[in-house]
């Protein structure tokens, strides 16, 4: 009996190194988006308190949903950042292994 070197294919699974960097960038975009949504809320709130009339009612009907919409984009980005961070890829590699071969 003896050992022989044979070539075998092995499956490697790993998270690409850049996934964390990209996820962090997307998180940063999400955070900035949230900050913008907050600013927008303040701007619209100020308008609401200083302006009266039908034009205001119409304008606010169109614009009141914008901060929430901005926040929803940020939420989506955060979720996508989390997903990107955990994407696993597979790679088959051929490696040599010592295998016991019966005589």
């Amino acid at each position, binding site marked *: 009996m003896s050992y022989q070197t044979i070539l075998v294919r092995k499956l490697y699974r790993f998270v*690409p190194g*850049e*996934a964390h960097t*990209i996820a962090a*960038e*997307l998180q*940063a*975009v999400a955070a*900035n*988006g949230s900050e*913008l949504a907050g*600013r*927008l809320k303040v*701007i619209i709130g*100020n*308008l609401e308190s*200083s*302006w*009266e*009339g*039908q*034009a*205001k*009612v*119409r*304008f606010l009907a*169109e*614009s009141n949903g*914008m901060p929430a*919409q*901005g926040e929803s*984009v940020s939420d*989506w*980005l955060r979720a*996508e950042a989390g*997903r*990107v961070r955990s*994407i696993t*890829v*597979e*790679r088959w590699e051929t490696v040599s292994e010592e295998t016991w071969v019966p005589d």
Partner: protein
Amino acid sequence: MGFIQVDPVELRQAAGEIEQVAEEYRGLAEHARRATQDAQSYDGQFGPQVWAVGDEAHARLSAQADRLAELSLELVGIAEAFESADAESLAALHAIALNSQMLVGAGLGNLIHSLFRPPHISEELWVMLPVEDRIAILQGLGFTFFLTPFTDPGTVLYVTNPLRVRGEPGLNGEILAYATPGSQVTYTGVSRNADGVEWYQVRYLVPLTGLVTGWVSSHYLSTGRSRVGFEPETVSERFNILTDAAVRESGGALMGISSDWLQIRDGPTGDFAVVDAPQWGRVVRWTGRYIEEGGHKWYEVIYDEDTRGWARGDRVDEFAPRMDAPPAPEGKIWVQVQQERSFSQYNLFDVDNYAPPNGDLAASEQIRWKYDIGPEGINGPIEVPRGALFGPDGVAMQGSGVVTVEVTNPATGETEQHTVYFTLDNPGDLTWANSEDKSTEWSDGGWTNGRPARIANPDDALFRPLPKPPELTSEVSLAGPPEYRGQTIWVPDLRNTLDNNPYALFAVEDAGGAFPRGSPRFDLYFEDAEAGRQWYSDFYEERRDAPIYVLQDIPPEIGEGPKP
């Protein structure tokens, strides 16, 4: 009686803040794309997913930015409408008093004037009162007629804000054209109230395509180009005009417009009328003269022979022409177009020739979706063979197709044949199955479970109708919005990809009525002679940011053009 309280200055300030937020969203959109676009593919397991996230983030953030920019413009328009109403009301009061004096003598004229200025309010204070207060006071006295000053059919009105001309009154009316600020419309005398707004039916002469009759919001119309007392000749009396000697002596400086629209006004405040509003990317000439007003630097600019005025300095940037641009004709310059769409390439499958390609797919299996055909308005579900999902090689269609369908015209009861162009919107959502109904997918250059024979979930397929491509008259045809008909465009991203057209210059051959003025969309159609197919390529998704350049007249020299 309704109560109105508004400060146009505050509205303008809020509009500026909203616009700033919009700009920052745009920056975030670019950031998201930059962060993802260099991800490695890892055999398609990582890169494509990340790129898709980047593209989607870019689209969502840009959409947010676009909507906010629209709201900002709308707010400016509302401020202008209030200011305009203010001027109209004053002018109407004075006109009535004057006419009364001429007609029936000074005594009654003064009486009427006094009536409009209640005796307990001094003239100085009356003039200073916001229009809402004056309206409220006069409404209390029973006077409301001057609230609707534009009532005569045939009145020519000025557009004060980028304005949609719609097929029906109301915000959901089909957009027929875009009227630019400073342009004129003719009121037909017909008005309707819809969505809380008074809509006027107007006639508008669309450059190049002709006269349209449609509906516009009366908020953005004015009887005079300028407010009373804010005519262009008053600028030098009201403001201290400064001069940048270096710019002036060098004949002025070309500046590129960096905001969606550059409102060129008769003077350096929102009180002055908008003369024109060229789009982002266009070039103006700064004469070297400027005014510092309201926290902004206002430049005196020249756009074309008819347009000279004042524009906010933060809406323009130094213009740097592309050094790799094709030679421009004398007096012209290449400028980038702001566009809403960019490239993607579709193979136009001739479904009639191959459907159904697979033995186990019955031709009778149909996919239904709704589609309007032609002006007759057949608006029923149209059936397309499910084989449309497959190409001759058993590979699912992932682009566009053309198919002949039979529909029954509800008006005549007769069966008609129509050619329908369509695209599959969600190829990624479809699951392949082999002939034994086992899932199979393309991986490492082969199918994991043998060739696909069918789609496991064909009902999930989403189709979108496409406009009919134009007849090809050359190797490459191009359709664009009406104002670009006959013009040449340059697509740098396609440079050196086309035989005999190294610069990738195209003449806009087909104006295609579906492209509204003001939102350019260019479609390119390639003929692939080898494959015997027509390729449909429009500026969408894959190269959303692919720039397009057009030729603009170089703005006139200082001293030419109309005087300010």
